[in-house]
């Protein structure tokens, strides 16, 4: 019999804790596929966030460490500086990266630290059960914005790619989506480019990925995809912000 599809070697056989329709499962599989395709599994080191993806070290079949909430870029900075020939990436949610860890990501980016960042923007705090995130949209209902996010009270959502695009230390910067097959294919491409740019030692490569959290959005997985496409992508346009050349 001919095998037409196999689980990537970079994933373990562990069952994830992710809810049905969750973006994390899709994205982590893409990362694993890319690492397999580039043949770098044995020299990759991942840094897990505090968030729903906290157990990443159980799912990835390569070296992965925990990091305190938001501090993955600081942890990655040291690992990559000391082991420059390894592939180092952080995997971070919006609360992790754009709230508690804002200083760490901005400064790692400003220093041009040569690792890749996969930023999973689901516009909500998944793990703690649905509070407002820094990327929660205006009007979006969360458990701490029961009447919808009101900028007058809760402030405005942060567009992280736009913010980082002014920093010279960031080489490659793209926002992708997982709301369609097309989007998922582009996301995989972006993940691959980010790692390839890292291998060129050019500075930080950063991919923001719009992802679903059906559980906390209180939507079906199918409706969640629709909401990303029709609502989230409007505020966070899918776009290449920085790409220094053709690397694929």
């Amino acid at each position: 019999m001919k095998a037409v599809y196999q689980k990537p070697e970079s994933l373990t056989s562990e069952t994830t804790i992710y809810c049905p329709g969750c973006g994390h499962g899709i994205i982590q599989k893409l990362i694993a596929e890319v690492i397999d395709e580039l043949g770098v599994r044995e020299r990759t080191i991942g840094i897990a966030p505090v968030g729903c993806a906290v157990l990443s070290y159980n799912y990835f079949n390569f070296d992965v460490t925990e990091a305190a909430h938001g501090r993955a870029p600081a942890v990655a900075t040291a690992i990559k500086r000391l082991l420059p020939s390894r592939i180092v990436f952080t995997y971070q949610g919006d609360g992790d990266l754009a709230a508690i860890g804002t200083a760490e990501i901005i400064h790692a980016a400003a220093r041009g630290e040569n690792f890749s960042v996969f930023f999973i923007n689901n516009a909500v705090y998944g793990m703690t059960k649905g509070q407002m995130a820094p990327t929660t949209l205006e009007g979006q209902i969360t458990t701490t914005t029961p009447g919808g996010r009101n900028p007058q009270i809760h402030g405005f959502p942060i567009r992280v790619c736009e913010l980082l695009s002014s920093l010279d230390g960031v080489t490659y910067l793209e926002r992708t989506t997982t709301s369609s097959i097309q989007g998922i294919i582009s996301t995989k491409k972006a993940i691959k480019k980010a790692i390839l740019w890292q291998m060129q030692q050019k500075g930080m490569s950063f991919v923001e990925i719009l992802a679903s959290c059906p559980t906390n959005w209180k939507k079906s997985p199918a409706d969640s995809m629709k909401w990303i496409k029709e609502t989230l992508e409007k505020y966070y346009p899918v776009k290449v912000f920085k790409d220094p050349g053709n690397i694929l």
Partner: protein
Amino acid sequence: MRLKILNGCEASAEGAISAGCAFYAGYPITPQNRFPEYMSERMEHFGGVFIQAESETSSINMLFGAAAAGFRCMTSSSSPGISLMQEGISYLAGCELPAVIVNMVRGGPGLGDVTPSQSDYFQSTRGGGHGDYRTIVLAPWSCQEIHDHTYLAFDLADKYRNPVIVLGDGLIAQMYETVRLKPTKKRFPKKPWALDGCSGRKPNSLKSLFLTPGVLEAHNWKLASKWARIEKREIRCESYYCKNSSYIVVSFGTCARIAKEAVERARQEGTDIGLFRPITLWPFPYAQLAECLKNAKKVLVVEMNLGQMIDDVKIAARNSNARIFFYGRPGGGVPDPDEIYKEIKKK
């Protein structure tokens, strides 16, 4: 033998370099600004990594990464910066990662001042961050000792896979003394648990999260047995004229050095007095102090704070009949020998 005139920051930095420190991250704060400045130059010279971090929070998490990758690493700061590091130190302890943290203590609370203090004793010896953990704490009283202690701290950190704190103060940080430098370390313990890519082995992971019921408790019991081992093996202290003395002064770090002068003077005048000086503040030398207190009628605890180590002295003295007195200077006050001498006489 290499002799150099160095201040406490430089002496500690040289101790780290001799011990094979490959990574330093820090953020400026008085009274230890010389530390990152000196390290920036020295690490470049030795091919190590120096990073001026955006905050102490970031510094300590950089240490987490450096330690995770299997490298010897350190940071230095002073009290407010060390407060910011506490979550990170707790993670290091929970994940069993070796790292060295130098705290040149200044007066607090809050922004306090920039003068020498010992008011971070509780924070250093009781864990400091969240969770049930301990860090080894070394309290030097000279530039030579901060050099030696920093060097030792790296070995202890690796040996027990635990963060180690070197507790100096603003005085040690800024005073210059002659220091005999340690030879450069050549052989280091292997770290098969480190994360450097899973080439030829199963993947490694580092974590302090254990969600399965009972597993975190088991992890804590395992850590507890490690700390019990440290308590058994790593106690360090010094005593001067303590044998059979009826009056014992207990003091640590800079303050002990000042107190020693006062004790010497009192002895010259015939007072039956000795000085006991814990060098490891955790593990605290309870048994050694209890031994010194056998014939003691009076104990004077002298600290540059409102009375923190005195709690440990009371534990050590629980079977002694000696009366315990305290003399302290909080908020960056530094006593002089005369002041302590008068205090000795008063009691």
